[in-house]
């Protein structure tokens, strides 16, 4: 196996009972930079991270992390990684400082270094003022920062972040993004899972899209957008066209319609962006030239790639609920209309 890979997983499989969570997943993550595992809820992201971070054993497959096998060389792997899960792994009744010092002692750092490291991390994560307060008094954003600080006490080579910004307000989210970027600059390999497309788009050098326990696409954000066509045509039908016409058009478009919002009478179609293709699409949708109220052509977003690649046809009745994908995905889609 190649040694410049931070993570290499081949044929990773895991089921709970008869439910297959990971179905022969292959992942290759090179050293340095940010790798994002992107997928809807229940896609198997957390299971994948737990296996890579030695907390769950896979049913099948071979996994090497930081050059060591997660099954046979757990200790070696554990010494080089850290995991920050979806729920803060902290003692609520201890102060922020006590939590960090505890981590330092468990890493067997010398006492002086334990204190120094805790103080430095509190400072860097803007928690010095709160350091002597119990964690139960912290806000969600503060907890998440302390949690990440706790996972950095040991200077890991690879950091696993399982949905690091889920449930955070926009400001805390931006702060978390900044921290992740700084980690990558400092040479740490960051492996994060997210259900937020803009998060992957903004942070990750490489993205693997998972759906139903399989990797359905992998590449840089630009490559993934490329894969589904460079542009998207968003169309809004007139109110006069009525819901039956809307449903008929969306049905006719089939999987080409990557978004559909009956309430706003809007849908989106991937296109190469040429005038000829756009004109042909408009003619197909609106042969009588009386149904389209407005249209807009723009570069594909990762949302489009995601929706296309996770093979969820945009028919209103079969689509996952908006919250399952991402609230802002729809907001962004409609903003162009």
């Amino acid at each position, binding site marked *: 196996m190649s040694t410049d890979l931070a993570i290499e997983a081949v044929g990773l499989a895991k089921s709970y009972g008869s439910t297959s969570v990971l179905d022969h997943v292959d992942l290759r993550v090179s050293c340095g930079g940010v790798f994002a595992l992107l997928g809807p809820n229940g896609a198997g992201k957390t299971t994948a991270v737990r296996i890579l971070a030695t*907390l769950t054993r896979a049913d099948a497959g071979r996994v090497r992390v930081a050059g060591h096998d997660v099954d046979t060389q757990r200790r070696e792997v*554990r010494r080089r990684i*850290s995991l920050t899960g979806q729920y803060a792994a902290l003692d609520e009744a*201890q102060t922020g400082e006590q939590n960090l010092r505890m981590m330092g002692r468990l*890493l067997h750092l010398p006492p002086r270094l334990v204190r120094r490291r805790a103080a430095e991390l509190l400072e860097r994560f803007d928690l010095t003022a709160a350091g002597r307060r119990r964690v139960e008094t912290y806000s969600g954003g503060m907890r998440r920062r302390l949690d990440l600080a*706790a996972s950095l006490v040991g200077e890991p080579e690879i950091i696993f972040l399982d949905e690091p910004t889920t449930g955070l307000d926009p400001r805390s989210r931006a702060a978390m993004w900044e921290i992740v970027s700084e980690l990558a600059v*400092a040479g*740490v390999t960051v492996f994060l899972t997210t259900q937020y497309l803009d998060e992957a788009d903004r942070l990750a050098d490489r993205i693997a899209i998972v759906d139903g326990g399989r990797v359905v696409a992998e590449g840089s954000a630009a490559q993934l957008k490329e894969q589904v066509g460079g542009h998207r045509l968003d169309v809004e039908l007139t109110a006069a066209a009525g819901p039956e016409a809307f449903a008929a058009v969306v049905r006719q478009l089939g999987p080409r319609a990557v978004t559909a919002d009956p309430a706003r009478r809007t849908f989106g179609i991937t296109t190469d962006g040429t005038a000829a293709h756009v004109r042909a699409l408009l003619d197909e949708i609106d042969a009588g030239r009386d149904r389209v109220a407005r249209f807009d052509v723009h570069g594909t977003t990762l949302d489009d790639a995601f929706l296309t690649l996770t093979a969820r046809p945009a028919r209103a009745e079969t689509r996952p609920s908006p919250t399952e994908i991402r609230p802002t995905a729809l907001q962004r889609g409609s903003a162009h209309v």
Partner: protein
Amino acid sequence: MSELALPKAAVRPAPRPAFVDAAGDAATMIGRSLRLTVRSVDGMITALALPIMLMLMFVYLFGGALQTGIDYVDYVVPGVLLVCAGFGAATTAVTVSSDLTTGVIDRFRSMDVSGAALISGHVVASVVRNLVSTALVVAVALAIGFRPSAGVGDWLVAVGVLALFVLALSWLSATVGILAGSPEAANGFTFLVSFLAYPSSAFVPVDTMPSWLRGFARDQPVNTVVETTRAALTGRPVGSVAWHAVLWSLGIIAVSVVASSVLFNRRTR
């Protein structure tokens, strides 16, 4: 925010023998559990209030009707100490079980902290907590007329046997806590343990019980500890029952240490 990296060489510790690290982890976990215990105010109040209420109830409500050959307060205090210790130790099942539901356990595991270190933290905290509550119960007992006729050596025997039993019961409870699906389920165990004090000489002499129950009541671990403590505190010779108490405790510890390690590894896979 400044840059996040430190030179790696500054942080990576020099390798040490494994047992030094293991002992260090246990010490860290003991410190953690003690801090968490002290901060669980309602837990401390329950651990202290219940035994004192129980003692007042037995001495003032039931005591008048019970004939034990000696002042009932002198008779019942060792029993109350045992119930108090048993209940306090059994709550370890709850603290371990709820600890396992928190995300911090995953972090410990990914840092290679052993189950034994984590459990020993809970167990030692339980022993300390129980020694404090035992001291308080003794203080209240003295205030309501408990007059032990024990020398320093007798006190040491009584406290030693009691502490060893608390250690054993705490470790057993921790094992139950790992096994229990939820803190609520673990809580049931505390009732079971508290109940063991009744078919024993804790509150009434075993001779007053039906004959089929006497054999069990005499030889069960709670009774051997009560008998030892009572003999020591009333200045009578302790005799072989003390060895039974010690053997029971050591046996429970041996089984629990092994079982808790095995179960912890299995549960947190």
